[in-house]
């Protein structure tokens, strides 16, 4: 590692820490300033004003805002994210329970969409103007602009309800997982079976953007001198496309995939709701709408940390993949 890179990384780490601190503070303020509180939502005539006050005190919301902020900072530095107001469970437990499900579905879908998008983008750019280019590009644009819940419901209706190939929603089948004779393989296949429809939906929504980025990047690359040189050397078309053009054209896609992977940890509230996928995205929406400050704050902080780190990693990866880039 050169001195320049080391200095660059240290500088970026300092920036990240600073930005993270700002996010930490803004999150605290945003949730406290938003209208409503966790106690006023309880519509039960048995909840007396004294009960409500007692709950507010127990949740620590009766303290002045600056005091709450100091406690929040202290807890954060000690690695304590608190107890969810909504579930009465440690926030870290809830996130750890939901995060793997989100990562499994969304990371797989992004990788699959990126793989297919890059592959098809590479092919259609080589056949620019031909019928395959027209149809695949239109298809990609249509899929990219589809309204996700609508597409999801149509897919569920056709493949799960009408044809019956897949389960309707959820991540696992209660009947199989409560069957004592069901082994690991059967349970694993059950997850794969449940994952198929949300994966297809997310794939259809996302592959178009990767395809379009790759196609456009490939078309730029094809005008480069080294492609002309490769042709002059008498290399065949597949070698020029796969070995010379594609690796250079894939750089913008790498940035896009890197950031998408980072953002994938927040899942997608709509996908997770329609498919009843027990992920973090849906939990995040619940937390915000129920004024569950500890859970919402911790989830957003996790997302912020991953995205900031991913930005740094993508930048470094970029420099590694493209030797022309220097920091």
């Amino acid at each position: 590692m050169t001195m320049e890179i080391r200095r660059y990384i240290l500088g970026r780490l300092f920036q990240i820490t600073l930005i993270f601190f700002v996010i930490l503070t803004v999150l605290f303020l945003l949730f406290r300033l938003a209208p409503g509180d966790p106690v006023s939502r309880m519509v039960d005539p048995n909840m007396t004003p004294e009960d409500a006050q007692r709950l507010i005190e127990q949740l620590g919301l009766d303290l002045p805002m600056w005091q709450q902020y100091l406690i929040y900072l202290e807890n954060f530095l000690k690695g304590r994210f608190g107890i969810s107001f909504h579930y009465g469970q440690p926030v870290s437990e809830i996130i750890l329970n939901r995060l793997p499900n989100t990562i499994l579905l969304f990371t797989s879908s992004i990788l699959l969409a990126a793989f297919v998008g890059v592959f098809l983008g590479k092919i259609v750019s080589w056949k620019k103007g031909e019928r395959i280019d027209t149809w695949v590009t239109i298809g990609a644009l249509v899929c990219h602009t589809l309204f996700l819940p609508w597409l999801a419901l149509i897919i569920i209706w056709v493949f799960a309800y009408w044809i019956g190939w897949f389960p309707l929603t959820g991540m696992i089948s209660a009947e199989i997982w409560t069957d004592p004779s069901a082994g690991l393989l059967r349970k694993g296949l059950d997850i794969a079976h449940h994952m198929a429809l949300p994966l297809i939906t997310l794939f259809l929504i996302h592959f178009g953007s990767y395809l379009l980025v790759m196609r456009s990047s490939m078309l730029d690359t094809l005008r480069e001198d080294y492609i002309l040189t490769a042709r002059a050397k008498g290399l065949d078309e597949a070698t020029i496309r796969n070995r010379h053009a594609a690796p250079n054209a894939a750089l913008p896609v790498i940035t896009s995939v890197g950031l998408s992977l980072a953002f994938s940890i927040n899942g997608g509230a709509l996908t997770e709701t329609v498919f009843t996928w027990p992920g973090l995205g849906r939990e995040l929406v619940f937390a915000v709408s129920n004024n569950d400050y500890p859970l919402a704050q911790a989830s957003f902080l996790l997302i912020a940390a991953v995205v900031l780190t991913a930005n740094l990693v993508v930048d470094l990866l970029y420099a590694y993949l493209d030797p022309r880039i220097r920091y």
Partner: protein
Amino acid sequence: MTLCTKINRALLLIAVSVLWLCPPGWAETRQPLRIGLGEEPRTLNIWMASDANSNNILSQIYQPLYRHAPGETEMVPWLAAGPPEMAADGVTYQVRLRPARWSDGSAFTAADVAFTCRLIKEFKIPRHYSRWKFVDQIEAVDDRTVRFILKEPMAIFLTRSLTIPIVSEKEWREVAASARKQKKPLASLFNHTVKRPLGTGPFVLEKWHKGAYLHMKKNDLFFGQGLRIGGRLLGPFVEEILFKIYGTSDVAMLALKKGAIDMYWQGIQPGYIENLEQHPEIRIFSSERSALYYLGFNLRKPPFDDPALRRAAAMLVDKSFIIKRVLQGYGSRMDSIIPSGNEFWYNPNLTEYGEDLNREQRIRAAYRILKQAGYRWTQPPVDDSGKVQPAEGLRLPGGSLMESVTILTPPADYDPHRAISGLLIQQWLRQAGIPASSRPMAFGALLQQVKARHDFDAFILGYGRLSLDPDYLRIFFHSEFDRERGWNMSGYHNPEFDRIAEASEKTMDLEARRLRIYKMQEIIARDVPYLPIYLPREIEAVRTDRFTGWVQMLEGIGNIWSFCQLSPVN
């Protein structure tokens, strides 16, 4: 064969294998009752549980001493062996218990009952404490007898206090002891994680797979098994229950039609009914609810501090139209705060504002009320010839121009019925010149605005589940509860009402109390701090091809009686 072809073939093979290995209905050897839930329960901690789904699950486990039975006006003894015996002093009650066991085999005793009640009092557990704070002493006389001594006679003791779920001392003793040592004991009690609740109910929790399902099994030690309580022979006759979660009602309805669930334990929208009725194996239950959806006014400031204006507004609101068009007929109009299904307490002889009047007649009636009260218009809603016309420039009796008033409603994605009702009411009030506008607001923010800040003109809210005891009348309108976070959200103050409400709370004679409750309903109907609008029906759908025996009562079929009586069709 190229690499690409090889990959394609491998992927195809994997896909076919998955499909072949996992056909629908893979593990169909058992016959569990499968129930769909709209959301995952929040918790299994009974003291923390305030949401419907947690309470639905826990109601299979933790049991009360007394409960309501279908078709019965009075409470039936459940864990209690008979009605409570009241001593001549009117404040001492003795309750004899049935022989029962906790699901771990240990004996259910009077000590458990005393422990539960003392726990509520000691920790001042929200939502329960208000029902126990007037109880002075709780004693376990022997293993099967509990004695309660009240500070003063209290009518709600049987219906509201003795209906709390009883927990096992064995399960909660250590938790309570540890919570006492904490800086925030109540929070510590709430945050205790319960993995396998110990109960006396018909089912026990086998497993909760977070985010996916809850698995319950029949409790072989259920005290009611084989007994006839409330005129019904109790089971359970179902070996196990699987609760599955569905993120949207659309998918839950598909699951019901496909047979993936036997019942969806959440009220369904009328829009689904027509489609469900095409499936002969699906049966739809439409039940009365104990609920209240209403328009509330802020009586603390003009213009709704004037009862004449509130009565005029009541005249303009066409409840039948809302029920027909917004609720698609699945509801009934409300004229009292107490739902009509609560037959014992409901006063059927109240003022029915605008009943059977058409639009023009309503406007004329409202015009008459306002004119009599001293209101004036630049252009009145009714001209000199008696013809209805657009009204303009409504002036208050003092002469000042009425400023615009806002009706706060929950947003349409939270409750479309209330949001649309707000828009309709806005238009109807404008016909008499009342410059109203409806404003949807996030639910939490709306409650804070109305309940904590008292900063509003009018609002539309509802109580989805009211107790059968009408003590909530006192809580909604007694001046004592007009304070921050109090339930007297309108700021209604009436010494006559307060006096009757206080007396009603302490009246032990049912008939005498009923007269007082009738009077309280009359006063509220006259003064209109709240205008009750509609009572939606509880619509539930079940499959009839696997299980039979659903018991319909107020609030629908999702009740303990159903779960104790359901049995497989074959």
